[in-house]
């Protein structure tokens, strides 16, 4: 397994644009276009299939948010929907042979940082400026370092969870491909067709694992990430005592 490939470098700087970023841009454009198509020409009573689909998606996220966070956080739904859509599609691009966006720690760490900002904002709002710092010395004052560590560990563990699951699937899949390639060479079932090599042993077996590691894992981890975001934010909005 290698890191994401560098597509190009911005001239004059040492900023590099990786595969992950380019895939992210394509996904943003795709999601935007699909959303515009789905929500164009809305009727009060849905007539078209696309409006029913759009309403289903919106209702799903709205229901999820109101159930976990309560009615007063209803305006939080767009953020959760964005996170969910971007994360699901970012993981599922691996079905098309591209590199999963979430298999890059930069992406997941960025999302976790946004969640951390939201958590901190809601803690400030619930406890006030002084109350926020006071909440770190909550049971006794000398426990403060531990509280700070646990506060920082929240976004770190969220980022590593999403990254680790997707990257782990990628490592296992690439190990399997290597093993099956070696096996088909060993059995003389490996043929060279132009620049490609066809390994007969690795034709169908990886598909079974791909259902779990790409489809299931990608969707469940995206769900868990947005779920944890909601849980952390709604518990941060409660006053500490």
């Amino acid at each position, binding site marked *: *397994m*290698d*890191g994401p490939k560098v597509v190009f470098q911005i001239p004059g700087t040492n900023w590099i644009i990786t595969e992950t970023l380019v895939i992210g841009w394509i996904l943003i454009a795709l999601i935007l276009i699909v959303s515009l198509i789905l929500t164009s020409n809305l009727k009060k009573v849905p007539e078209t299939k696309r409006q029913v689909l759009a309403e289903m998606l919106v209702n799903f996220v709205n229901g999820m948010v109101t*159930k*976990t966070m309560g009615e007063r956080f209803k305006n939080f739904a767009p953020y959760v929907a964005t996170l969910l859509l971007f994360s699901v599609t970012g993981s599922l691009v691996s079905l098309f042979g591209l590199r999963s966006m979430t298999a890059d720690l930069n992406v997941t760490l960025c999302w976790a940082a946004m969640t951390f900002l939201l958590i901190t904002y809601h803690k400030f709002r619930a406890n006030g400026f002084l109350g926020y710092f006071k909440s770190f010395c909550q049971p006794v004052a000398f426990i403060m370092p531990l509280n700070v560590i646990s506060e920082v560990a929240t976004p770190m*563990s969220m980022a*590593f*969870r999403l*990254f*680790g*699951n997707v*990257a*782990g699937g990628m*490592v296992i899949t690439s190990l399997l491909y290597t093993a099956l390639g070696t096996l088909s060479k060993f059995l003389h079932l490996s043929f060279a067709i132009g620049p490609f090599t066809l390994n007969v042993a690795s034709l169908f077996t990886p598909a079974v694992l791909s259902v779990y590691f790409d489809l299931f894992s990608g969707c*469940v981890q995206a*769900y*868990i990430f947005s*779920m*944890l975001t909601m*849980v952390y934010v709604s518990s941060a909005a409660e006053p500490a005592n």
Partner: protein
Amino acid sequence: MSNEAFVLGCSAIGAGLAMIAGIGPGIGEGYAVGKTIESIARQPEAQGDCTRTMFIGVAMAESTGIYAFVVALILLFANPFLKKL
């Protein structure tokens, strides 16, 4: 044996040892899911709540395994000890 080969070999062993940590989350998650199924069987109408809470709990239980996996990944693909040679 060159120094580099020794460090690489030891790192590979270390990565393998780090992944022993996968046992803990495995047992823990299995226990959590089993308990959830028990409670759903007792109260089928609470399935939605049970499943949602279970997912969060399982995700939490998974953290230690993921940390171990990240350590293993660092040892394998971004080895910090090779730079110290």
